[in-house]
């Protein structure tokens, strides 16, 4: 990769198949490190009613002992060889992965497989993880930000699992029956639906043999399909009273699906409006011009492939109304006329020019590949991206901005003691 030029930077992605599993691989032998990331659809969306947080709880238990190794011995085995193994549940997926030194790869594969196939679920470990989870769930509600995040999803998707807490509530975690956790793994860790991405110091031939070992003996079939995500509910402005000198605001509206032909154009529009740090209109209007906040940003979030635009800002209670007005005005201005030609050129220059920056470490490469697969992108998606971006002219972006942005439907949760709303 080191001989690539700025215009010709490319990332050769290989596909490796073994035992019915198909992995994407970027080989890079410059540094003795390997990263593997994998996921299944499902995650918190499959938590039964009343068992919010079951998938996240089960994921945590995978690191609490497996096979003949109780929790501390399992942790020692990982730490003695610096294997960073992790499992987690997201709103719509269940994920695993590790990064390790090349020499520790056989041990990493052994321990990751052991964790998935033979977790111990020891009673004392379960008690510890439950207590930790309950404490974290309670602590998350101590700040305006935590309160706002909880309320935002609940208000936007009141009748769908996506509206619930991913990590669980103090009540649901306290009441979680022990048998709910193996049940999570039984429905989640399946042969079908599994996506795998690998980057680093490993050849395709080596990966072929390791893949079979890592995922051997998974039960057939796919995780159950969750209910389709309904449209984002415009719930207006919702205030949650929290004693604090500053209010935390989370705002959003319906977005575009990953499969939508306008998806990439929408990303460009949102970067210019809200996602580009100091290059965005919102940052300029809210922070640079008026000093209303330390930062403001918004972007497309995908849940089950469906898009939702989510943004956040925090400002002194007395200035919440002004901040929200400035935000809505910028939203409306972009919806009306779209970006300028200069803004278009700057955004495309950044998106094209920054591609090599995403490939400086193996974990980030593996995560990027996995995200492409979850969005059902073809193998040449990245290679063709500069050409697709270059084809987005101002008229197209303006049309997408008009279609996408609905200032009148921008819903917001405000946690704090806002004045003048």
């Amino acid at each position, binding site marked *: 990769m080191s001989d690539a030029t700025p215009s010709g930077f490319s990332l050769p992605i290989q596909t490796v198949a073994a035992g019915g599993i198909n992995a994407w691989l970027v080989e890079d032998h410059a540094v*003795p490190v390997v990263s593997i990331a994998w996921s299944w659809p499902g995650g918190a969306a499959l938590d039964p009613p009343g068992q919010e947080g079951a998938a996240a709880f089960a994921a945590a238990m995978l690191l609490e002992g497996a096979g003949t190794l109780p929790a501390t011995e399992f942790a020692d085995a990982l*730490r003695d060889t610096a294997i960073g193994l992790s499992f987690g549940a997201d709103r719509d997926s269940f994920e695993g992965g590790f990064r390790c030194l090349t020499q520790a790869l056989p041990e990493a594969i052994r321990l990751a497989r052991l964790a998935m196939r033979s977790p111990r679920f020891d009673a004392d470990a379960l008690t510890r993880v439950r207590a930790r989870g309950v*404490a974290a769930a309670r602590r998350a509600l*101590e700040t305006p930000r935590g309160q706002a995040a909880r309320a935002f999803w609940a208000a936007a998707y009141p009748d769908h699992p996506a509206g619930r807490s991913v990590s669980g509530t103090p009540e649901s975690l306290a009441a979680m029956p022990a048998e709910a956790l193996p049940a999570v793994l039984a429905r989640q860790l399946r042969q079908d639906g599994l996506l795998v991405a690998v980057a680093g110091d490993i050849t395709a031939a080596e990966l072929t043999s390791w893949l079979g070992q890592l995922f051997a003996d998974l039960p057939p079939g796919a995780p159950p399909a969750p209910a389709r995500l309904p449209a984002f509910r415009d719930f207006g402005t919702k205030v949650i009273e929290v004693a604090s000198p500053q209010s935390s605001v989370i705002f959003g509206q319906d977005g575009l699906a990953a499969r939508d032909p306008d998806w990439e154009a929408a990303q460009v529009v949102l970067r210019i409006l809200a996602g580009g740090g100091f290059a965005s209109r919102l940052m300029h209007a809210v922070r640079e011009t008026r*000093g209303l906040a330390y930062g403001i940003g918004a972007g497309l979030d995908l849940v089950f492939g469906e898009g939702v635009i989510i943004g956040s800002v925090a400002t*002194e209670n007395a200035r919440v109304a002004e901040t929200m007005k400035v935000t809505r005005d910028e939203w409306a201005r972009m919806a009306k006329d779209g970006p300028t030609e200069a803004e278009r050129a700057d955004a495309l220059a*950044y998106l094209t020019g920054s591609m090599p*920056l995403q490939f400086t470490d193996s974990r980030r490469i593996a995560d990027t590949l996995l995200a492409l697969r979850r969005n059902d992108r073809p193998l040449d998606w990245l290679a063709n991206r500069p050409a697709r971006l270059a084809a987005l002219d101002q008229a197209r972006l303006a049309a997408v901005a008009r279609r996408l942005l609905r200032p009148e439907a921008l819903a917001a949760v405000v946690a704090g003691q806002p004045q003048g709303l």
Partner: protein
Amino acid sequence: MQVMPSMTRRTTIAAAAALPATLVAPALHASPPAASPGDRPLFGASAWTLPNGLRVVLAESRRVPVVAHYLFYAAGAGEDAPGKSGTAHFLEHMMFKGSSKVAPGAFSLVVAREGGQDNAFTSRDVTAYHQTVEASRLPLVMGMEADRFAGPLLPPETIEPERSVILEERRQRTDSSPRARFYEAFEAALFGPESWRGRPIIGWESDIRAIERDDLQTFYSRRYAPGNAVLVVAGDVTEARLRALVEEHYGSIPARPVTPRDRAAPAAAPTEARLIRHDPNVREASFLRSAMAPTLTWGSPQAAWALEAVAHLLGGGQGSRMHRALVETGLATSAGAGFDSEAVGVGAFMLSATPRPDVAPERLEVAIDALIDRLVQEGPSEAELARSIRQMTAGALLALDGLGAAPRLLGSALACGLSLETVEYWPAHLRAVTLAQATAALRGVFAGAPTTTGWLLPEGVPAPRGRA
């Protein structure tokens, strides 16, 4: 988002390298002690100094056509003038408001247009500005960085809007979080609210409001001199090319006198030995205990290395003494120890724990006292010290995966007055810690060093009295 946080080095390094921050530690020695023949420098960095005093470090990596460009100043919040805490951080914000060739606010926009990312951070010990760009754009960011190094505009009309931004940053980071407010008060209780070590990096609110343009200009004039700066470049550039580029862009900045750091020795006793705070927003009680401790620049460097290992065996997660005695017994939901040896001046060795909701805080504190007493009396075992050193050093090479760790580790060490070797051979330094050193170091901290114990409690929860 390209916002400019005031981060501590601990979080900076943890984010960059994804290693526990306790792994990251350098020393004063010029060469590694007990280096085995297989020991090689971690980054293989080269270093040189320009005639104007600017030190330059290159950690070459040809993996991808990308470079990271970091400029460190050997001055941070610890150098803020009395009554003006937050000056170093305020100046960091103002460095984005233009210089002779770069219009106010344009710096980040130009970097973004070139596909790059830029940011900055202020810690107690350093202020750093950094960009990551595709390799051919190195001269561009270097030119802009050198321009603001030579003379920031600090436009008067941008001061008040930026002060509002910083006050919002303070509200977001600290004032809206009961835990952050408590932590800030806790540090002030141990070191003193007006001492360089006990003040918050972002500054007390009243101090932020009191900072004037002259304060920023003075800080810049005294501290932002070539002889007080370290430039680190990591990534796809050869030494010959970098030497030429650095000479072209930074060589003409004139040498200026530097005001050296002047940090007062810590007080012989804590300002408050016990800090109890009740907060209506708090739902989970929290215990903190901090003792003043040596670092690699203050007291015995050997003791500082030893304390890195002590923190791991005492409170480094599963298998540690605190985890076994507090978490596995059902007294606490979490418990740990933390220590950062790489700091200028006195350091802090910290214990933290959260009691289970059905456990009275008093009971947890009694158990912590008992386990510390026992460790002080018996000392650690050979086996647990060896386990800690093994686990702390096992992943050293993971820092090569990515372009952030090398410049952050190398730059902050040099800016703290430590040598390149402390970073290049840190695993060897840690492996050289003996049982006798670890025992002596922990006794120094837990038997006699000034200490503050703090409790953050939900309303209505009785405060533990603590040992007399």
